[in-house]
């Protein structure tokens, strides 16, 4: 059982060792810890899950652990090159790595524990540990974004704490493993589930409390934006899945479906007027999370599609944010109108950004395409052609809005010398985009791993 605590221990040890004031120790221990967590997470896929008083690792936990570990690894490696371009950091490099490792620790903790109170504690701890990372650039906009993040997300999470209280009042327990199988029902349980959707949904970027997200993603350093978009939001989605897994409430699932459609619609419409590259990818994340939550609300094959989309999106979106960091370092801006000819001046960055953009918007043959297809099939089966058509149209609008802008930035003609980033700066996003493509091969395996998971 305790073997599943390895990722938690790795991140915890790295956070402490990062504080040693010796040159490059912070970078080395962070990369080593993230690598060890990734290897352990791969091994977990071949081991039986565990159900205990503290740890509860089932199929979805294993997939979340693997995704978090891989993005944690890519973010720590990319940080090595990215931090060279931060002119006036708010704190020292070793504090950055300390916070990054603690942030990773809180995420792997959240998806490994059994008690829903501890899941809540882990998700709330991600806020505490990541808030200062957002403000690394040490300017007024970044600090303001950090403040909005803390106040809005914490308030949302207090609502999910109330959901836990009401669940305990109804069931007498908060243990997800023992409550599994949707055994809790009634008005109070439904209210608890709805509050959990609102509370954790605030962190997942759900309508209407997503307003913190574009600011934070737009102003945070690129590795942190990548972590937020790729794994922090999915951790909040995981908490919703866990909660819905113990409460039998069709009303709460319908409520989640409606909020998912509203989230998707809002993000799709706002995407059509975006002028900032990082904010555009932030709204794309909101759009993806809205789609994911549609799948979660429907269950069955659509829920498997939601998890496939979560994983494929995680790799591709982290790549998109890393590449935005490359562009910011070279062009000094992320305003799309001022970014021209990336394909010529930074060929690897430009081409990888093009493919990463296709991947996050669900183009075939990337994993996100399969995920969205499964979700759309589920929507069609449950609500008919009109609703499925609406959801498909909103996804198509997002696809066009994002890719049109990326194509204009990458393939526009421009004269100028080549100024490509170093090998680490381009290899990490390239590998992440390739992983997003590879997910499609593992869809049947993901389906098998998720069989029998409560709430899906």
């Amino acid at each position, binding site marked *: 059982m305790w073997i599943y605590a390895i990722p938690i221990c790795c991140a915890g040890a790295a956070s402490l060792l990062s504080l040693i004031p010796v040159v490059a120790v912070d970078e080395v221990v962070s990369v080593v810890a993230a690598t060890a967590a990734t290897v352990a997470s791969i091994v977990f896929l071949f081991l039986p899950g565990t159900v205990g008083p503290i740890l509860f690792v089932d199929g979805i936990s294993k997939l979340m652990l693997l995704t978090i570990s891989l993005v944690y690894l890519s973010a720590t490696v990319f940080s090595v090159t990215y931090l060279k371009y931060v002119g006036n950091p*708010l704190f020292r490099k070793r504090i950055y790595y300390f916070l990054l490792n603690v942030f990773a620790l809180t995420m792997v903790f959240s998806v490994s524990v059994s*008690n829903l*109170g*501890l899941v*809540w*504690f882990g998700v*709330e*701890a991600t*806020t*505490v540990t990541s*808030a*200062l990372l957002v*403000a690394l650039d040490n*300017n*007024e906009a970044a*600090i*303001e974004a*950090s*403040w909005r993040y*803390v*106040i*809005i997300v*914490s*308030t949302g*999470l*207090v*609502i999910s*704490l*109330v959901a*836990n*209280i*009401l669940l*305990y*009042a*109804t069931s007498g327990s*908060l243990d997800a493993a023992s409550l599994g199988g949707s055994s809790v029902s*009634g*008005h*109070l349980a*439904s*209210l608890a589930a709805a509050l959990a959707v609102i509370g954790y949904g605030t962190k997942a970027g759900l309508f209407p409390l997503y307003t913190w997200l574009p600011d934070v993603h737009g102003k945070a350093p690129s590795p942190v934006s990548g972590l937020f978009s790729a794994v922090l939001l999915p951790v909040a989605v995981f908490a919703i899945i866990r909660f819905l897994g113990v409460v039998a409430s069709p009303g709460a699932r319908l409520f989640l479906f409606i909020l998912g459609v509203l989230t998707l619609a809002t993000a799709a419409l706002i995407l059509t007027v975006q002028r900032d590259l990082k904010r555009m990818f932030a709204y794309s994340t909101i759009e993806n999370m809205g789609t994911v939550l549609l799948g979660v609300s429907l269950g069955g094959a659509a829920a498997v599609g939601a998890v496939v989309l979560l994983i494929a999106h995680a790799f591709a979106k982290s790549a998109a944010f890393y590449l935005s960091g490359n562009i910011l370092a070279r062009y000094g801006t992320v305003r799309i109108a001022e970014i021209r000819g990336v394909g010529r001046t930074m060929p690897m960055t430009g081409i990888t950004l093009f493919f990463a953009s296709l991947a996050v918007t669900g183009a075939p043959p990337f994993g996100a395409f399969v995920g969205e297809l499964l979700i759309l099939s589920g929507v069609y089966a449950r609500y008919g052609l009109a609703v499925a058509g609406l959801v498909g149209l909103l996804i198509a609008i997002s696809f066009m809005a994002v890719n049109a802008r990326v194509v204009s930035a990458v393939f526009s003609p421009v004269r100028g010398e080549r100024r490509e980033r170093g090998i680490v700066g381009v290899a990490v996003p390239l590998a992440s985009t390739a992983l997003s493509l590879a997910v499609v091969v593992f869809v049947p395996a993901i389906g098998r791993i998720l069989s029998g998971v409560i709430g899906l």
Partner: protein
Amino acid sequence: MLSVYGITGFGIILLGLFIQWQVYVSRIVFTFAVSSVVVALSLFYQGVVSGSAVPVALAALTAAVRGVLIPVLIVRNLHETPWRAREDRPVIGTASSILIALALVIFGLWLFQWAIDRTIGAAGAYSALPFAMLFEGVFLIISRRNAFIQMVGYLEVENAVLLLASWGFPGLPLVIEGAVVLDLLGIVVVAGIIMRMREESISSDDRAAAAAAAEDLKG
């Protein structure tokens, strides 16, 4: 004991509405401090009557941190940052915000009454009051831009959670109370650091202009 719940609950809701009415931060903070002390007294009374140490410990923590420490720190900070002394750009006008807050309180009371069932004890009906308070606190955060007032709104929400947990469900596991306490320590400390950074990020010119504008507003 039930009448104590009722008087305390309605009193705190009225104090919340009074906060919504105010624009000066110092008055809002003072009202919040009074509200926190009332919450602490209620928890203390509950602990004494039930013979349980947990509510007494929570009462002490609430009184010390939210009743005294945080209000004192905010008021001290206000002396250094006079441009934050009042909310001059509320998202929603005062009259409208009072009406909306009142409507939210009524909605909260109705929602809890709808959801309540026999699993909750005799004090369950009164738990609707802190539940309604939650909506008041969230609305305060949404309707104001001033960082101090948003912080008061957040702490108001936490007071509501403590009361809800203690009144309605006294047998809750320690993980809930522990979560509230750790949340208070973590979020308030981080929020305090960010608030401090926000102030430092404003240039001295901006400070002078903002201070002059604040003086003008005082008339």
